[in-house]
């Protein structure tokens, strides 16, 4: 009985496969090749190096106060890293603000370690041949949410406010080219050149895309954070520079994270 069913299922799968091959376009085979390439890369994810460095930095006594970040409250209580990223951005009582991971790390570096805000926010993204603490910390904390579903609260009025603001910013078109986030990420099955574009207004696609950031970018040899990703999108939108941990960046992350609600975190993933 079980065998018969298995055979029937296999036959059906075979038919489906044959059908998809028969109707498939060249684009599909290209996409499959890219998937294979991604899978091969993911087997040996260089982000592990950033995660290890980040964990060491988390535990290292740093800053004028010479203390570690181990007492940092990422939302689940002081020192709790496991699952924290999957529930960010979120409202924090102590600052009275909605913070994403990067802005929360800045808060902790200032409050616990005694850095000035300027020091904590300096060089947030690695440059050529230059590693920075923020990338490593982000890689470590996000990796501790692997396998955990995104669950972002909108219970607090400021969380709701950030979500609504982020949504407005997503649809905000401006600058010389009239581009907004929605231009590239508002419709299904679109691509720029050969690069597939996720529709980030669609929960299924948002889950897949959002849960893969931060990510190791092969083309850049770096782990890039969500803050970096947003910064680089606005550059290509011909906007001025999005400031690191700015209110707009956090609001936009809130909108993206909430749309991706329920997606299982796989970051830091590997990207082209």
């Amino acid at each position: 009985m079980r065998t018969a069913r298995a055979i029937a299922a296999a036959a059906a799968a075979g038919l489906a496969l044959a059908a998809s091959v028969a109707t498939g376009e060249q684009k599909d085979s290209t996409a499959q090749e890219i998937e294979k390439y991604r899978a091969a890369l993911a087997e040996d994810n260089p982000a592990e190096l950033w995660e290890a460095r980040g964990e060491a930095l988390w535990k290292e006594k740093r800053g004028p106060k010479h203390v570690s970040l181990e007492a940092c409250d990422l939302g689940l209580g002081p020192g709790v890293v496991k699952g924290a990223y999957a529930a960010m951005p979120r409202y924090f009582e102590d600052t009275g603000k909605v913070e994403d991971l990067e802005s929360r790390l800045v808060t902790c570096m200032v409050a616990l370690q005694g850095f000035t805000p300027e020091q904590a926010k300096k060089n947030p993204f690695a440059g050529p041949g230059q590693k920075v603490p923020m990338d490593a910390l982000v890689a470590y904390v996000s990796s501790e949410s692997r396998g955990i579903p995104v669950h972002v609260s909108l219970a607090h009025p400021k969380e709701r406010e950030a979500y609504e603001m982020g949504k407005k910013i997503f649809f905000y078109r401006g600058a010389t080219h009239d581009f907004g986030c929605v231009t590239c990420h508002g419709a299904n099955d679109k691509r720029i050149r050969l690069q597939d574009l996720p529709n980030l207004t669609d929960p299924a696609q948002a889950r897949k895309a959002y849960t893969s950031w931060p990510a190791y970018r092969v083309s850049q040899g770096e782990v890039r954070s969500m803050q970096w990703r947003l910064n680089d999108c606005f550059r290509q939108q011909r906007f001025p520079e999005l400031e690191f941990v700015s209110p707009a960046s956090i609001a936009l992350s809130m909108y993206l994270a909430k749309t991706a609600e329920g997606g299982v975190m796989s970051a830091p993933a590997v990207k082209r």
Partner: protein
Amino acid sequence: MSARRLVPVLGLCGLAVACTSVMQREPAEPSPAQVKAVLASSFQAKGQAKLDRLDQDELQKACSHAGEKPLSPEAAHRIQAEELATVRYPQGGLLGDWKAGEKIAQTGTGKQYNDDPSQPSGGNCYACHQLAPGEVAYGNMGPSLYRFGATRGYTPEMQKYVYAKVYDSNAFTACSNMPRFGHMGILTEQQIKDVVALVMDPKSPVNQ
């Protein structure tokens, strides 16, 4: 804004139960001024991209709502008529050099804060359109333009349409994803003529 809006709402609502849904939704939607304030506090001028790029013109304002609720046909027609009226056609012919047009179609830089403003901007046409068959790395945000002139006819009217479409895509499709290359000064008059030639010159590889 929220205070002014809340007062009549509170006045009208005697029963708390009846008000709940209104009260919860009311503060959620930020006003355009609030959105603008958050953006102004979140961006910094860099290179050629100054903060005035955050200021929306009327079209950008109208099209920022389009994502959530589509434009009415009346609004779309009004936008298209207004944008069409801004198109400035060159003196003389509209067909430039298709080879120069191909280069513009392949170039994606221009107007970004890390771009050199002394260099001409590209049109990046291949990012969204199929054009010459030799280029297989083309996007699909816009329709294929392969054999555009060959199938539509090499008429002066069609040349004029293509020029206007590149100059201001919104003259024909309100809230198009395509930039307004002439209207916004991204491409020069000569560059637009070169792009018209890429699409409309019978000798262009696009029409082979």
